[in-house]
């Protein structure tokens, strides 16, 4: 059996998206051209823009197509070190950025880079469930703060943030509000007006669309400065000839999400609770990570002390199951998941964590298969582990 439980990493193309993109494969015109070929491409791009805007409650000219969620996040953060009067009058004096310790690396590494380029960056702590500390935010906010950037749903543990409240707090102190909603859009309802954000990031490949395309919502009238310059595309907000096929795919992907999202939440919740119950019953000494309630219903993060995550991932892979891990060994760095560490999970638990993320194709049969394979995989790894030997770290707990 082949089981793909890694939908937070990426998703397969929706068959309807694939169909629409395949049919449009002949469309090659440059949307900037005035002739028939160009106008055809332009019409498709604008149609997709309308769909994306409609899906998040924005107007069409508030949606900028970009190359990825990472690019959208880089664009927003980079605004705040722009020293040019031409781009963002009024905000350039406010060069402090507040974000959290559990953001995606594209936010954290960009922030670190900006700190070297003159910005001040402050990182909010999170509690043991991954919720941002709003008291600390209150203390950090001041007239030096230009931007608050907090992700809506965390990719590793699924914890949801109260973006509405955070945006309100940011605005009261005169700062702009950005949310990286890459993991939230298409999973939970997202309305930019309800959230009250100025910028919001979307990625296509997390919602059964193609890779290499994303969208950035920029509220009308918000100061803006392009990351990629040298063209009038996207009304001068993102140079480079549009990825027409990708954009079309993104448009179709949000359209399909609009039709299929309803009820999915309950289906995921049932599968997630079956997974939790099964894991709890069949495996000793386990710890669930993330918020027990206020979390994406498709995401389950669990730690198995005494078993290392990359080993778990690869043994599961041999049995046809795909998950991801917070272990250092799988990340290429020496540190385990920064998200788990920020929630106060110790390094060993972080090394021994896996993330199961469900998608529209996931079934209860797959959950049962997982619950069959996972316990014997963990037993096998723990039997060869030093953690449970006499005098070992977990000798007493079993």
């Amino acid at each position, binding site marked *: 059996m082949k089981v793909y439980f890694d939908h937070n990493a990426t998703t397969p193309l929706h068959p309807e998206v694939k169909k629409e993109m395949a049919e449009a494969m002949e469309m090659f015109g440059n949307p900037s051209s005035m002739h028939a070929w160009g106008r055809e491409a332009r019409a498709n791009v604008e149609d997709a823009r309308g769909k994306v805007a409609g899906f998040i409650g924005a107007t069409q000219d508030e949606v900028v197509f970009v190359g990825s969620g990472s690019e959208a996040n880089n664009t927003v953060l980079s605004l705040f070190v722009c020293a040019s009067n031409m781009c963002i009058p009024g905000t350039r004096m406010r060069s402090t950025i507040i974000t959290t310790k559990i953001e995606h690396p594209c936010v954290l590494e960009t922030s670190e880079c900006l700190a070297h380029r003159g910005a001040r960056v402050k990182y909010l702590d999170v509690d043991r469930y991954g919720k941002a500390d709003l008291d600390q935010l209150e203390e950090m906010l001041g007239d030096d703060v230009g931007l608050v950037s907090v992700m809506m749903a965390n990719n590793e543990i699924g914890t949801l943030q109260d973006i509405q409240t955070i945006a309100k707090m940011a605005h009261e102190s005169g700062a702009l509000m950005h949310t990286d909603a890459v993991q939230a859009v298409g999973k939970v309802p997202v309305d930019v007006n309800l959230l009250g954000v100025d910028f919001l990031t979307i990625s296509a490949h997390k919602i059964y669309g193609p890779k290499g395309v994303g969208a950035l919502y920029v509220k009308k009238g918000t100061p803006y400065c392009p990351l990629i310059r040298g063209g009038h595309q996207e009304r001068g907000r993102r140079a480079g000839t549009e990825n027409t096929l990708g954009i079309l795919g993104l448009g179709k992907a949000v359209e399909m999400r609009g039709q299929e999202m309803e009820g999915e939440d309950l289906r995921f919740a049932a599968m997630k609770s079956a997974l939790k119950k099964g894991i709890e019953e069949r495996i000793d000494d386990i710890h669930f990570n993330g918020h027990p309630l206020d979390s994406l219903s498709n995401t389950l993060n669990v730690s198995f*002390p*005494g*078993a*290392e*995550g*990359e*080993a778990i991932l*690869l043994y599961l892979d*041999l049995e046809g199951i795909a998950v991801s891990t917070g*272990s*250092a*060994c*799988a990340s*290429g760095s*020496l540190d*385990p998941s920064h998200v788990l560490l920020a929630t106060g999970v*110790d*390094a*060993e638990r972080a*090394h021994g964590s896996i993330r199961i993320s469900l998608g529209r194709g996931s079934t209860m049969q797959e959950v049962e298969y997982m619950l069959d394979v996972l316990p014997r995989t963990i037993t096998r790894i723990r*039997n*060869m*582990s*030093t*953690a*449970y*030997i*006499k005098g070992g*770290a977990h000798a007493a707990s079993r």
Partner: protein
Amino acid sequence: MLQAGEWAYSEKLKEHFMSPKNIMQGENTDEFDGVGMEGNLQCGDQMMVVIKVDKESEVITDCQWKTYGCASAIASTSILSEMVKGMTLDQAFQISPKDVAKELGGLPDNKIHCSVLGDKALRSAINNYYVRNGMDDRVRQEQAKTVCQCMSITDHDIEEAVLEGARTYFELQEHTKIGTVCGQCKDEAESLLEKFKHIHFGV
């Protein structure tokens, strides 16, 4: 280039990961002649090696292990346990991480550090055998030598930094802060950097 569906690891490594050899069953280390343990769970790697030794010939007759770690860690301890059987204690003591990696058909650079604990644990098992048999004089400790007096950085720290990816003196400084005060140790540090790059990565 990776072919579709191929692992980042060699076939040999995959084989030892899928069917590890000589895993120590149960918990009783008393039936072995030497026990060695290195690493810790917080760092993501811990290995224990136990050996049985023929007293007459000092040949290792059995070697078993337990490992907490990733696929490279599991496979490298497994293959190490196969390599040392039939070796004398002196021969086994000489095994380097490079020998283990070679036997495994190579390891990706970022995985070398996952395999270095096995041979360390083996050496500590051998030392443990000497102690248990009243041959304390044969115990060889791997003593660290301080290279940078100001920051108190040892040759072991430099080796560790190389395994973590430092390739240039600047990267070494980023990892260890070596030579950031008086700077007198630069020449020695650079030559150790080259030495460990050669030992572990053959460059």
